[in-house]
C-alpha cells in the first residue's frame, strides 16, 4: 500500500505533540509546586525537651527576658537568680503534664490560676518555674487573660522544613499577673521587639525548634520582651 505522506504532517504532529507535552509538564510541575508550597498545619503536641546546662551553656528549652531598649540577641537580659541555668539570664523550662505545647486546642490555667503566694498553678505546657522567688508558668486561653481579647488556638505550620505560626493565645502567669507572650499579640500586631514564630522541623525525626519574641504591653514589665526557645519533638494528634 502506498501511503501518501501529507507534506509537513509529521513535523506538525511533532510540534503539536511537543506543545501538548510541554503544557502537561508545566501543569504537572505547577501542581506539584503548589503541593509543596502549601504550608501544612501541624496539629498535635510540640513535646518540650527539658532545659539543661551543657558545657556551661543552656540546652533544650528556655526563656529569656530582654530589658526595655535592649535587643533579643544582645540584651540587656533580665537576670533570674533562681534559674537553674549557669547563665542566669536563661530560665530553663521543663515539660508540663501534657508534655508540651498543643496546637489546635487550648491549655488553660486552672480556674484558680495562682496560689496564695502568687505562684502560677498552670502546669500543662511547662512545670511552674521559679522566677525571682515566685513560680511562673504558661497557658493558652481562648480569652487572653491580660487583654481580655478572644484569640484563636495555637497554630503551627510547616513549609519545606521551616516552621511558622500564630501563638497569640500564649501567656505567662506570675505573681497574680498575666502577661501575654504570644506572637502576634492578641490584637494581631507585633509591637516593639515582638518577632514572628519561626523554627525548623524534621519530618522524619519530628524534631523541632521553635522561637519567637513577644514584647510585654502593660503592667510592671511593660516594654520588656520575652524570648522563647522551645525544642523537642512533635507528636501529631
Amino acid at each position: 500500500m502506498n501511503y501518501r505522506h501529507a507534506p509537513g504532517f509529521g513535523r506538525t504532529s511533532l510540534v503539536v505533540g511537543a506543545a501538548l507535552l510541554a503544557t502537561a509538564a508545566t501543569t504537572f510541575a505547577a501542581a506539584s509546586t503548589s503541593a509543596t508550597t502549601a504550608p501544612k498545619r501541624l496539629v498535635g503536641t510540640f513535646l518540650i525537651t527539658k532545659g539543661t546546662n551543657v558545657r556551661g551553656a543552656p540546652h533544650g528549652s528556655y526563656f529569656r527576658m530582654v530589658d526595655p531598649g535592649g535587643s533579643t540577641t544582645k540584651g540587656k537580659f533580665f537576670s533570674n537568680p533562681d534559674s537553674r541555668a549557669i547563665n542566669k539570664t536563661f530560665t530553663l523550662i521543663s515539660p508540663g503534664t501534657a508534655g508540651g505545647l498543643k496546637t489546635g486546642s487550648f491549655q488553660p490555667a486552672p480556674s484558680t490560676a495562682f496560689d496564695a503566694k502568687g505562684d502560677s498553678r498552670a502546669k500543662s505546657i511547662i512545670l511552674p518555674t521559679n522566677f525571682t522567688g515566685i513560680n511562673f508558668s504558661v497557658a493558652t486561653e481562648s480569652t487572653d487573660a491580660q487583654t481580655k481579647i478572644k484569640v484563636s488556638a495555637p497554630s503551627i505550620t510547616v513549609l519545606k522544613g521551616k516552621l511558622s505560626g500564630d501563638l497569640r493565645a500564649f501567656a505567662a502567669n506570675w505573681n497574680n499577673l498575666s502577661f501575654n507572650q504570644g506572637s502576634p499579640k492578641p490584637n494581631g500586631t507585633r509591637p516593639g521587639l515582638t518577632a514572628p514564630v519561626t523554627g525548623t522541623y524534621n519530618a522524619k525525626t519530628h524534631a523541632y525548634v521553635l522561637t519567637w519574641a513577644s514584647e510585654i504591653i502593660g503592667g510592671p514589665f511593660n516594654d520588656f520582651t520575652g524570648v522563647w526557645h522551645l525544642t523537642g519533638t512533635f507528636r501529631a494528634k
Partner: protein
Amino acid sequence: MPVLSGQSSPVPGPRRWAIGVIAAIGVALIVLPFVFSMFARAPKGASMIAGFRPYMTTARLDGNQREIRQINSGVHEATTTAASALASGSGHAAGSLAARLPDVAAFGSQWGPIDTSMTNMLTTIQSNLGNYDAVAALPKFTLFPWFFVIPGIIVLIIVLIAVVRPRLWSAARWVLIALGIGLILAPVAFQMFSRAPAGGRMVKAFQTIETTANVQSIQGDFGTIASGQGAIQLELVPSLRSAGLTDAQIAARFPGIVRLDNNWVGILNDLTPMIGAMSDNVGNYQAVAALPPFALFPWFFVLPGLLIGGLAFAAGPRGRRDQPNLVPVRNRPAAEGES
C-alpha cells in the same frame, strides 16, 4: 386674645445684645471640652484615679516604706557584717566580697542610689495622699465634659425659645438665672475650690514620677533588687552556712538578711503591681497634666454662671419705654379709616 400692632415684637422680649452674649456663652460651654480634648482626657483621668486607688492608702504606703527599709537593712548586713563574717571564716579580707560573691557586692554598690530614689518617690506619693483623696472625692472625671456641654445646650435651647417665642422670655430668663446660680453653686457643692487645687498639686508632684523614663528606671531598679536579693539568698546565705554558721546563728547574727529573705515574696507581691500601676498610668497622667490647671476648674463654672445669670437678669424684659407699640389694638382709639 389681645391683638398687638407694630413692626417690632409687641410682647416683652429680651434685649438682643444680651441674648446674643448668652448664646455665645452657651456655645463656649459646649465648645470648651472639645478645645481641651476633655472627652479623651477626662476618662484617662478617671482611669488614673481608679488605677492608683489600691496603692494610695496610708497603710499600703507605710508598708512599702517598711519594705524598702527591710531591703536596706538586708543589703547593709550583707555587705558589712556578713561579709566580715565570711572573710574571717575564710581568712580573706573583707574587701574580697567582690571576688567571692560579685553579685552580692554589685548589689551593695547599686543599692544606695536605688534606696534614695525609691524612698524619695514613696515619700512624694505619701505626701500627696491628701491631694489624691481630694481629687478622688470630686465627681467622676468622665462627667466633667458634660458639666459644660449640658448647661451649654440648655442655654442655647432657652435662647432659641426666647427668640422664637418672645412672650416666653420672662419665664425663660428665670430658668437662665437659675442655671447661672447652679453653675456658681456647683463648685461650692463639690468643694472644688479646695479639691481642684489639691489635684493640681498632685499633678505637679507626680510630674517627675509618671514619666516613661522614670518608670523604666524603676523597672530596672526592680530587676537589680530581684537579682540582688537572689544573690543574698542563694549565694551569701549558703556561703555563711559553708563557713560553719547554723541557720539559727545566721538568724541571730543577721536578722536583716533573714527578714529580707523571709519577706521577699511579700515585697514582690506589694511592689510589682504598684510598678505596674505606675507604668500603666503614664499615658493617663500625661492626659490629665495636659488639661487646663486644676485650680481654674471652679472658675470655669463660676464665671459662665455669673455671666449667664447676670445677663439674663439684665436682658429684660424690656420696659414700656423700650416698646412703644405694646398697646393692644382693641384698647387704642379707632384711627381714621378703621372700622
